[in-house]
């Protein structure tokens, strides 16, 4: 198995601000990889570098086996990108947006028609194909943006905060769609600040904090590293303390020994938010 994405000592500075600080990462073909971190952690900057939109300050970056600095045209042919903000032309229909993407990806007339019909059916948007983008629901708009990025059959799809602004139902439908895409052979690289999204969707998760990748592993392994059971205690209505344990027995034993002024105690399984808090001292949504 080869790497879809490989970075070595990748840095991106904006003046004195280190947006990406020495990033070393490899994402093998076929994986759903998630970047988890709060706003400003460097997730979108990383996507911009990987998708050739921004030049790295230093370090080596290859995407789809091509160097992003010297072979950017080859990189552009193997990637699809769905930006955080809806980047469709809202004065056009879904079909026209797809047609535009097919044209700039050099698909000939026959192939364009074929791919548009295939993809519309794939995402069940055929009956909305000739509707103006602005008349669609949030989930449909997102799907339309994704199919535009898939028009040239990219091997690797970047999704920047794919479910921001979607309701819970639309979010889950989109997760199913992303899983289906991955099962059909597309490597997925996504950024998110939703804990649940990273946990249920990603094969591996990288935790970003202040431009640094502080940990990478499967969600289960990341939880295990800090302790699979967590005890939350609220002392004097002020501050929540988190204590991690390898199993529930150890957690129960700890709770029995707590002083009487501890008012609230919650014992639960740990999640990626706990991993983030344990490793950075901050919540994902703090910044």
């Amino acid at each position, binding site marked *: 198995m080869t790497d879809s994405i490989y970075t070595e000592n990748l840095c991106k500075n904006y003046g004195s601000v280190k947006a990406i600080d020495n990033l070393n990462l490899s994402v093998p073909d076929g994986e759903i990889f998630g970047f988890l971190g709060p706003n400003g952690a460097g997730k979108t900057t990383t996507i911009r570098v990987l998708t050739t*939109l921004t*030049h790295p300050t230093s370090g080596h970056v290859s995407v789809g086996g091509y160097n992003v600095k010297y072979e950017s*045209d080859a990189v*552009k042919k193997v990637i699809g990108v769905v930006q955080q903000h809806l*980047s469709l*032309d809202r004065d*056009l229909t879904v079909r026209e947006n797809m047609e*535009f993407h097919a044209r*700039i990806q050099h698909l000939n007339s026959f192939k364009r028609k074929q791919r548009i019909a295939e993809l519309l059916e794939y995402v069940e948007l055929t009956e909305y194909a000739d509707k103006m983008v602005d008349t669609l629901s949030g989930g449909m708009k997102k799907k339309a943006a994704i199919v535009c990025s898939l028009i040239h059959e990219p091997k690797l799809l970047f999704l920047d905060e794919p479910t921001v602004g979607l309701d819970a139902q639309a979010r889950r439908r989109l997760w199913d769609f992303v899983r289906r895409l991955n099962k059909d052979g597309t490597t997925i690289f996504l950024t998110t600040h939703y804990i649940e999204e990273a946990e249920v969707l990603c094969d591996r998760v990288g935790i970003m904090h202040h431009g640094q990748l502080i940990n990478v592993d499967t969600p289960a392994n990341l939880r295990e590293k800090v302790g699979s059971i967590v005890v939350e205690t609220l002392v004097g209505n002020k501050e929540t303390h988190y204590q991690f344990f390898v199993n529930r027995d150890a957690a129960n034993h700890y709770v029995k020994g707590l002083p009487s002024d501890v008012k609230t105690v919650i014992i639960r399984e740990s999640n990626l938010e706990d991993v983030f808090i344990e490793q950075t001292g901050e919540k994902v949504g703090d910044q």
Partner: protein
Amino acid sequence: MMNIFSDIYSVFWLDLRNMQRHWKATIATSLVLPLLYLVAFGYGLGRGIDVDGFSYLAFVIPGIVALTAFSTSFNGASSKLQVDKMFYKSFDELLMSPVSSYAIIIGKALIGVVRGGISAIAIYLAGLALAPTLLVNTQVTLLFLLLMLLSCFVFALFGVMVALLISSHHGMSNFSTLVILPMTFLCGTFFSLNQLPSIAKVVLYFLPLTHSANLLRSTMLCLPFPWLSFAGLLIFGAIFFAGCLFALKKSSV
């Protein structure tokens, strides 16, 4: 080589679809101001006035055609690009595609040429309706139309460059007030540059609309061809194209 032409068309295609959807409003709004200028300055205030040996109406019509080509091409290319870049973020889609920078620049400029060309031709026809003697012969008309389209292309490149370099609505509004508006009135569109002091004349030759107005007026009034203005317009085109390339490069730093 074929790829660059098909890429240019692909970039242009998107803006063309947009324009087709809103063509009536697009053309109508771009004609209001030049038609008002034509009636107010040419037919109203200018009656009975002679400039450089011609009636004011004959003098001002090519100036207003140049002005229309300038404002409509500039706005046509810059406004949609700015919306795509700042609000829809759809311009990034182009940057992430295998389309070359040259194709992006020319493709984005072409919508300005189409919009500017349609509006300028409409004003030209309105001008001919007011002063039919200005229609000399087919060669002059063809040369006039070619120079008008060249002007539209240069001004559209100017619009693309400005939209790429300025990244806020506020900045664009300031640019329009401080640069575009003074150019509209000062570049020999409504009065002869011969009436100005030499120093002012020299300064105005550093603005592209001056050359466009000079070229169109000289052609329409069958005056000697102003090669200096022709070269000036081409140089401005080259500068704006280089500016667009610089802005695209800067956007990915």
